[in-house]
């Protein structure tokens, strides 16, 4: 009874109402930010007395915001490539390997995901102080690859597990070398997994703030760090404009991921 929506009776409306309220709770703050970014009140009065694009103009006129966004994009792309390549290699080992201790190795690969990021951040900060990597591009990239890799590995092992190794074997029997078989048969077969892993890895790096706060220097910072330092000073609507652009990017990437999933199921 309770698991049949149409036989719930009055409870159906209670559940629907809770769902609706929760959806509004999740959605409204995001819409609120979008509305504020177009509102002309510096003090973030809602509803705004009028509409304007000046916060976006301020955002795009400030080279520090643009610089931070470009740095974030650059780091995100490099992290994406490294994380997918290392993730693919690690997944091949985990799924197709025959060595002992694969379960332990898998758990090891996922630890950076379960540990509080602040511990990883402080530990890396100390290591980078010695290596001189704080405030450098490689420093950011290494830090972000550490936290993006587990997600890439989960996604790619998932794809590999559903891809029948017999197909790869067939290619080898037909005369392909093992590497040829991997590159020309297995890779195309799991491309949806690779694309999702790439999107995840990019987004994780693009949105990551705790590690970035520790890695940042006055001359090199990512977009989240710029938002963070600005937020600690005041709640200017420029952040609403920046946040809106971030939300827009998220929606685009989510649609891309959904299209990928659809393509996979067809």
């Amino acid at each position, binding site marked *: 009874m309770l698991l*049949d929506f149409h036989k719930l009776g009055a409870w159906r409306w209670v559940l629907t109402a809770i769902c609706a309220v929760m959806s509004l709770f999740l959605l409204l*703050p995001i819409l609120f930010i979008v509305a*504020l970014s177009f509102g002309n009140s510096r003090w*973030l009065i809602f509803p705004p007395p009028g509409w304007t694009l000046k916060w976006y103009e301020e955002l795009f006129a400030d080279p520090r915001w643009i610089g931070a966004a470009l740095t974030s994009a650059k780091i995100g792309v490099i992290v994406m490539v490294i994380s997918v390549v290392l993730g693919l290699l690690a997944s091949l080992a985990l799924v197709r390997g025959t060595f002992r201790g694969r379960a332990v190795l898998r758990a090891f690969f996922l630890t950076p995901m379960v*540990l509080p990021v602040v511990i990883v951040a402080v530990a890396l900060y100390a290591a980078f102080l010695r290596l001189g990597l704080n405030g450098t591009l490689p420093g950011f990239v290494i830090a972000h690859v550490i936290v993006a890799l587990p997600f890439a590995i989960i996604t790619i092992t998932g794809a590999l597990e559903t891809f029948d190794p017999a197909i790869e074997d067939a290619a080898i029997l037909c005369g392909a070398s093992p590497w040829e078989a991997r590159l020309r048969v297995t890779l195309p077969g799991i491309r949806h997994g690779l694309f999702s892993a790439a999107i995840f890895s990019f987004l994780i790096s693009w949105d990551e*703030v705790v590690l970035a706060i520790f890695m940042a220097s006055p001359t090199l910072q990512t977009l*989240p760090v710029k938002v963070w330092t600005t937020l600690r000073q005041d709640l200017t609507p420029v952040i609403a404009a920046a946040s809106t652009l971030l939300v827009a990017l998220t929606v685009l990437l989510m649609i891309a991921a959904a299209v990928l999933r659809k393509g996979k199921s067809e």
Partner: protein
Amino acid sequence: MFSAATRRGSGLGFAMSAILLLAAFFVIPVVFLLTRSVTEPQLGLQNYAALVGSTTYAKVFFNTFLVAGVVTLVTVLIAFPVAWALAIMPGRWASVVFAIILLSMWTNLLARTYAWMVLLQQTGLINRMLKAIGLIDQPLQLTNNLIGVTIGMVYIMLPFMILPLMGVIKKIDPAILQAAALCGATKWQALTRVLVPLAAPGIASGALMVFVMSLGYYVTPSLLGGTANMMLAELIAQQVQSLVNWGMGGAAAFLLLLVTLGLYAVQLRFFEPKEGR
């Protein structure tokens, strides 16, 4: 015929690059940080003694566990009916709610926290609405305290509770609940004695995950809580960044690590579905 193993090697070599990267930039730095907790400023347990002995730090621990506990409780109470509804709703509506949950989950953490900082401030929308409907005369202090942190954290943790719980409820056989109804159970009885107990492993494992994540959270507590209401992750960052006290930072990090891993061990031991191998 040659076997797959001899043709491809054992495959461990493929994982080497990832293993080396994690060893160099994850394992060694973390171990090193934890070591400093007993070697700086001199060899001994003085940092742990200070952490346990002082009322300032006791307050940080109290704040951390209080917020994590309340956030977990509220999240479970909201997430259960939502997950239940999502598991059985007509597909079209379920996918709308599902899309909203994913959107919220993937929206930049700082953007979401900023939204709550603006909404909850003294002149913010929440206070003005409460005033307009006559519930309050003076604006409530909702930021720079643990109330703000709790609201912001529940907002962030909800998807992490709803999504796994939905999976658990979907796997429950509706026939069991039909049986309960046939045996004369009222809806309330069927809920409290059949559905909730069947979903309990999912609830417990989700709650544990939310609790652990909340314990180590840094961004939202520091933006919505202010410096007077510090939580554990902020303490670690402050010790290292502002006070350059690596021994103390390492000790606090070790305690957080211990609690985190301990709770995950409980999770793996009791709630992880056994694989049928």
